């Protein structure tokens, strides 16, 4: 059981398009610049990490996260720069390594990559991959990426890209190894694979009670122990939004969240979101929406329950929200929520639902 002193916090975005002061949805370019401004504020406030997702849908301005992160690298001092997630299945591990090693250099070693299969499927047809190869693509590509991380010449052969023979890939990092996570949405097999490669585990918890992910944390720890790899602190990322009051936060967040949720739901056969469902998820599920105190209490409970070492708040899941409200949410997160969570956890640290043994930090 951890005492939470090393707990880290992050903000996470997919590059949703906010509204300007006149209520107009901004351009893609302006949305990218808004993301940079929010990350700069997060850095100023001492928030430990920013993660940026890769999407190929019209709702999201960011399809090339590391390019945005490189811009943020120049404008910030301390904050870690991560993807959330890099859709490795439809990318080339060699290119991914080159881009992140470059980002790592430009940020003085602050890059981290979160690999995933992605919960969206648009990238597969766009880049010429067959969804029926979903498993194979990720299996092969994570294997190659793992090999590249040693930063030595790689010989590799598979079915999803050209073979490599003693290929030395540049640039090299100063630390010798990129910090690598795998984003997992709920597959035990993915958890075991993460442990197998010695990667860090980031749980994507976007609905339902966080406690149901406790078995995955436990599984990760047991698997690393059996496989002789390192059990790093587990991370979680969940959507939320912070305003002065619960009501203000809910009203700012709900309309845009419903639009996106229903649009994606329509593709996946979900019924339209009802307000009562939304409220239930805010009350006891995985939406961290409310005043600083409400969100802090909820986060402290989840962190304690899952015994995680990192919490990333997806702060832009409210879709086309006011850019000023988004910036304010980051400010409240950094100045109020995070200190409050740390205090709450210092008061009563030990109530985890995870049964595994203590692990190395």
């Amino acid at each position, binding site marked *: 059981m951890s005492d939470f002193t090393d707990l880290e916090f992050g903000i996470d975005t997919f590059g949703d398009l906010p509204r300007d002061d006149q209520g107009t949805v901004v351009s893609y370019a302006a949305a990218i610049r808004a993301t940079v401004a929010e990350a700069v504020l997060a850095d100023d406030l001492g928030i430990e990490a920013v993660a940026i997702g890769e999407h190929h849908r019209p709702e999201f301005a960011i399809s090339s996260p*590391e390019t945005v992160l490189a811009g943020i690298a120049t404008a910030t001092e301390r904050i870690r720069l991560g993807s959330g997630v890099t859709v490795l299945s439809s990318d080339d591990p060699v*290119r991914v390594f080159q881009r992140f*090693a470059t980002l790592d250099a430009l940020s003085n070693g602050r890059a981290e990559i979160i690999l995933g299969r992605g919960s969206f499927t648009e990238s597969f047809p766009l880049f010429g991959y067959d969804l029926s190869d979903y498993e194979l693509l990720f299996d092969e590509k994570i294997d190659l990426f793992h090999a590249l991380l040693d930063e030595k010449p790689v010989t590799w052969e598979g079915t999803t890209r050209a073979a490599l023979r003693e290929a030395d890939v540049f640039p090299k990092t100063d630390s010798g190894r990129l910090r690598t996570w795998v984003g997992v949405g709920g597959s035990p097999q993915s958890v075991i694979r993460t442990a197998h490669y010695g990667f860090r585990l980031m749980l994507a918890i976007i609905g339902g009670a966080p406690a149901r992910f406790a078995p995955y944390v436990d599984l990760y720890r047991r698997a690393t122990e059996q496989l002789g790899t390192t059990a790093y602190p587990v991370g979680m990322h969940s959507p939320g939004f912070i305003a002065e009051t619960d009501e203000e936060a809910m009203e700012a967040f709900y309309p845009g969240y419903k639009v996106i949720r229903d649009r994606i739901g329509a593709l996946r056969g979900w019924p339209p979101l009802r307000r009562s469902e939304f409220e239930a998820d805010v009350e006891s599920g995985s939406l961290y929406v409310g005043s600083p105190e409400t969100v802090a209490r909820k986060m402290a409970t989840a962190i304690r329950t899952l015994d995680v070492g990192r919490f990333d708040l997806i702060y832009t899941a409210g879709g086309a929200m006011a850019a000023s409200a988004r910036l304010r949410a980051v400010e409240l997160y950094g100045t109020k929520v995070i200190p409050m969570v740390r205090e709450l956890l210092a008061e009563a640290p030990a109530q985890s639902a995870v049964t595994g043994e203590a692990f190395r930090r």
Partner: protein
Amino acid sequence: MIMAIRIGDIEFGLNSFGDVATDGGRAMTDAESLRLLVDEAQLAESVGLDVFSIGEHYREGMVDAATPVILAAAAQATSTIRLGTSVTVLSTQDPVRLYQQFATVDALSDGRTHLVLGRASAIESFALFGYDIAEYEQIFEEKLDLFLRLMREDRVTWSGQYRTPLENVRLHPRMPDGGIPAWIGIGGSPDSVVRAARNGLPLMMAIIGGRPERFAGHAELYLRALSQFGQPELPIGQHSLGFIGDTDEDAKNTHWKHWQPVVTAMSEERGFYAPTHERYETEVATGALYVGSPETVAQKIARIVRANHLSRFDLKYDVLHLPREAREHSIRLFGERVAPRVRELLEDDPGEWHLTGRTPAEIVKGGKAAHA
């Protein structure tokens, strides 16, 4: 927004291939060399240069594999200088990813980004990314077609041989309507010159050896071809290697010391004669190496601007293991001394810089773009 490149003006750019520098005699790490590039982009802006460009290479000693990522960092560190590539190896890139990455850099730089597209003279990327060098020509042609359509059209339906088809696809983030300025980089092939003209793209001539005036024929071919294809007047640029020091001797001594081993290694790999000091001197005197004092280099650039009808001159300033202080000094002299002196020389004697009857052209961003 209009980003005008007037043919009546001359612009100066710096090009880097991400060559690893030295610091106090020690080779800098890849990571340090990357951070140095961002510092040099800032320096280039502060000494009044117009463009800073980065190449794309996949070998030891060169750190420019992920060009858009480096340009994004430079975008955030600068505010007026334009940022580009020198060149983007389109043949082994996916035009879709390229569009997405450069739309992102353009957003971060608030419209200061452009590309020079080429087939590249180094071939490492073909094996690394699984392309057959024998199809060099077809691959470039097909990818250029797709990339231009992605920039010029809103929704694209496309099929070809070297990537998966696209069905009514609209990419994000969006570039400005019409795309961003894209030049074609050529190394000496007349076919490539005609291709640039046919597609209505500005021409960047990479002249890395021999008498640079021999490219005047290419420049004239380009101008004739533009007019035959009914394209507007578009700029011609030249990319060459060089180094500027306080005196000719200083510049040559420092440059030769670092240039000689690089070109010797290259000559073994590519099968040409190893450089001798005598040939180096000839290359500096009458060839394509722009090495010397500010006055020498300015005179040499002014001559080639007139001969090759240039409106842009890019100096590739880095060489493997060139000390960082020497790079910095050369950049300063290029911006503060060479560029103003060339402008002065051209004003005094434009020669045939402007071809008879040519009118200034603009590359227009937004609306109906001439370049894209």
